C-alpha cells in the first residue's frame, strides 16, 4: 500500500496535470472548506506522528500555534541528512505536489502566511523541481495569492541549505533560514511559540514525509488512516534500507510491519548473516541481528521497547563481517564532522572520541581506552544543547555494550609486544568525594 511513494505507480506524477488527474489538490480544496481548527482536529484524530525522527503527534504540534498572531509560518524540514536516510528525496522527486499540498493544508490549519521548504544543499535538483511545481501550483491557484479564491494567501518558497547535518535540527534550521549561523538555539521558546519560530514568529516545523501524509488523511479521513499501522503508530512509513542488503531502497509499509518482513522478505537479507542493525541511521542505538530484534514490529512503541528508536526509520544492516569498532568510529566521524560546535560536551566530546577511536583502530589502544570512550560518551549524553550530543554518544555506548568483544580485540596487548609503555599509563579517573 503506497500513500507516499505513489510516484512509483504513477508515471510523471510530478506534473501538476497528472497529480490532479490522480486526485491532487482535492484535499486542499476540502481543507479550505473546513475551519482551520477542524483540519487540526482531523490530523490529531488520525494519530499522524512526526516522521522526522521524534515521532511527535503532528496535529498536537499544530494546535500549539497561537491563533491570533498575524504572522505565522510553516517550515518544511527537507534537510534529510541522517546517515542512511533517503526517503524524503524519493518522495519529493516522485510525488512533490503531495508534499506541497500537505504543507499548504498545514498552513491553512494554522493560518500561516508563508511556507518555507528547507532542502539540504545537495538537493539542488530537487530545489529546481520544487520551484517548478510551486510555480505550476501558483498558476493554478493552489498556492500564493488568494488560494482557490478563499482570500487566504500563502506563498511557498524553497531554501537550499549548504551541507550541515545540524540544520535538520529544527531550531538550527530556522536560524539557518534567517541567515544566521545554523546552530541550535535554546528552547523554550519553542518554534510553535511566538519568539521561538522563524523570525521569532510562531512556526510549525514538519518533516517532508509527515506533511506528505496529510492530503491522504484529509482525503480519506482520519479513521482510514488509523486503520493502517498500530494503535500508537498509525499509517505507513517509508523505510530506508541500506548497508549489507541485496535489495536496498525505500519500502513503504504499514507501521508495525515486523523488521524480519522488511529485511528478509522485501530487502532479501539472510537472517543468519545480520550482525547488527542501526534502525535510525547513525543516531539511534544499535541493536544486534537477533531473532528477538527481527521479530519486533517497526512501530514507535515496539522499537522503544527494544531500547532503540524508530526515528527516521533509516535501517542500516551490517553482516557478520563487520567490526563494530569500525562502525563506532565511522559514526563518530560523522558526528565529529557535523557537530556545530556550539555547546561544550558535543564539540569537545566528539573530537576526543574520534581521536581515541582512531588510536584503538590503529592498534595503539589500551583496554582502559574502551572504558574511557564509554565514559566520555556517557558524559556527553543528556548534557548537550540539542539532541546531537545524545546521537553522538549512542554509537559508542551501544556498540560497546552489545559488541564488547569487537572492541577488546583491538586493545588486548599482543604478547610479543608487551613492553613498558612510552608514556605513563593512564589511570582510571580520580573520583572526587561529593561535598
Amino acid at each position, binding site marked *: 500500500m503506497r500513500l507516499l511513494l505513489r510516484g512509483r505507480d504513477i508515471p510523471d506524477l510530478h506534473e501538476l496535470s497528472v497529480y490532479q488527474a490522480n486526485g491532487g489538490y482535492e484535499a486542499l480544496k476540502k481543507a479550505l472548506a473546513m475551519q482551520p481548527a477542524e483540519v487540526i482536529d482531523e490530523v490529531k484524530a488520525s494519530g499522524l506522528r512526526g516522521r522526522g525522527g521524534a515521532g511527535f503527534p503532528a496535529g498536537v504540534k499544530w494546535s500549539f500555534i497561537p491563533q491570533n498572531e498575524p504572522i505565522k509560518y510553516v517550515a518544511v524540514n527537507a534537510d534529510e541528512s541522517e546517515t542512511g536516510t533517503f526517503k524524503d528525496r524519493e518522495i519529493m522527486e516522485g510525488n512533490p505536489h503531495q508534499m506541497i499540498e500537505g504543507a499548504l493544508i498545514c498552513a491553512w490549519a494554522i493560518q500561516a502566511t508563508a511556507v518555507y521548504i528547507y532542502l539540504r544543499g*545537495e538537493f539542488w535538483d530537487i530545489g529546481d523541481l520544487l520551484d517548478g511545481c510551486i510555480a505550476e501550483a501558483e498558476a493554478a491557484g493552489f498556492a500564493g495569492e488568494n488560494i482557490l479564491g478563499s482570500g487566504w494567501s500563502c506563498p511557498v518558497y524553497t531554501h537550499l541549505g*549548504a551541507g550541515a547535518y545540524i540544520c535538520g535540527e529544527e531550531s538550527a534550521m530556522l536560524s539557518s533560514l534567517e541567515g544566521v549561523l545554523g546552530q541550535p538555539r535554546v528552547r523554550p521558546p519553542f518554534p510553535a511559540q511566538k519568539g521561538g519560530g522563524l523570525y521569532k514568529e510562531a512556526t510549525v516545523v514538519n518533516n517532508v514525509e509527515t506533511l506528505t501524509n496529510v492530503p491522504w488523511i484529509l482525503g480519506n479521513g482520519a479513521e482510514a488512516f488509523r486503520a493502517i499501522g498500530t494503535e500508537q503508530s498509525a499509517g505507513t512509513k517509508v523505510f530506508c534500507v541500506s548497508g549489507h542488503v541485496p535489495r*536496498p531502497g525505500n519500502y513503504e509499509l504499514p507501521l508495525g510491519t515486523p523488521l524480519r518482513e522488511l529485511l528478509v522478505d522485501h530487502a532479501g537479507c539472510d537472517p543468519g548473516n545480520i550482525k547488527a542493525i542501526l534502525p535510525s541511521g547513525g543516531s539511534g542505538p544499535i541493536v544486534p541481528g537477533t531473532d528477538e530484534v527481527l521479530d519486533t514490529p517497526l512501530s514507535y512503541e515496539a522499537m522503544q521497547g527494544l531500547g532503540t528508536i524508530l526515528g527516521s526509520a533509516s535501517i542500516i544492516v551490517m553482516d557478520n563481517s563487520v567490526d563494530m569498532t569500525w562502525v563506532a568510529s565511522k559514526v563518530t566521524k560523522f558526528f565529529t564532522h557535523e557537530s556545530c560546535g556550539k555547546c561544550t560536551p558535543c564539540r569537545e566530546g566528539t573530537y576526543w572520541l574520534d581521536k581515541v577511536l582512531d588510536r584503538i583502530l590503529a592498534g595503539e589502544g589500551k583496554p582502559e581506552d574502551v572504558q574511557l570512550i564509554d565514559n566520555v560518551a556517557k558524559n556527553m549524553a543528556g548534557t548537550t544543547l540539542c539532541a546531537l550530543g545524545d546521537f553522538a554518544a549512542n554509537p559508542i555506548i551501544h556498540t560497546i555494550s552489545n559488541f564488547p568483544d569487537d572492541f577488546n580485540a583491538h586493545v588486548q596487548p599482543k604478547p610479543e609486544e608487551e613492553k613498558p609503555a612510552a608514556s605513563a599509563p593512564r589511570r582510571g579517573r580520580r573520583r572526587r568525594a561529593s561535598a
Partner: protein
Amino acid sequence: MSLHDPRYKARIASHLAKYPDRRSAVMPLLYIAQEEYGWVSPRGIQEVAEICEMDPTQVKSIAGFYTMYSERTKGRYWLHVCTDLPCALNGAETFYRELQEYLGVEEGGTSADGLFTVEHVMCLAACDKAPMLQCNFRYMESLDMEKMKAWIEEKRAELEAAGQGQGA
C-alpha cells in the same frame, strides 16, 4: 566579474523577495558568488555582504560553517564522494581511495590538470546506490572505478577538444 553584474540581477532579486529580512538571502547568494568566482572568494563575501546588508564577518562565518561553500579555489569538477557508513559498507572507501590514486590527489586536493577536486563527504541520501558521489552538487550514483575512469577521460577529452585542458 561581480555579483553586481546585471545577469544576476533577477536571480538575486528573486531570492531577496522570498524573505522578510535581506540577511536570509545570504545562503542563496553565497551559491551565486561561488558560481561566479569558482569559490567563495573574499570579493564574493564582500559583495554578498553589501547586497544582504550584513557585516562581511557574518558572511564569512556562514560561508565557513557549511561544507558546500568553498573558501579555497577548486577544480572545474568538484567531486564529493560519500564514504559514510552505508556507502562504506558497499565499498565506498575503496572506491574513494582508488579514485584519489587515479587522479593522483590527496583528500581535498585538485588533480594536476586542475580539473578535478575530490573530497569525501558524509551521507548524501543515496545509500541504496553506493558507491556514489556528487559532481558540482549533481548526483552520480551506482558507480565503480571503471565508470569513473571513463567519465574522467571523457571530461578530459571534451576539454582537450575545447582547447582548455590546462589550468583552472
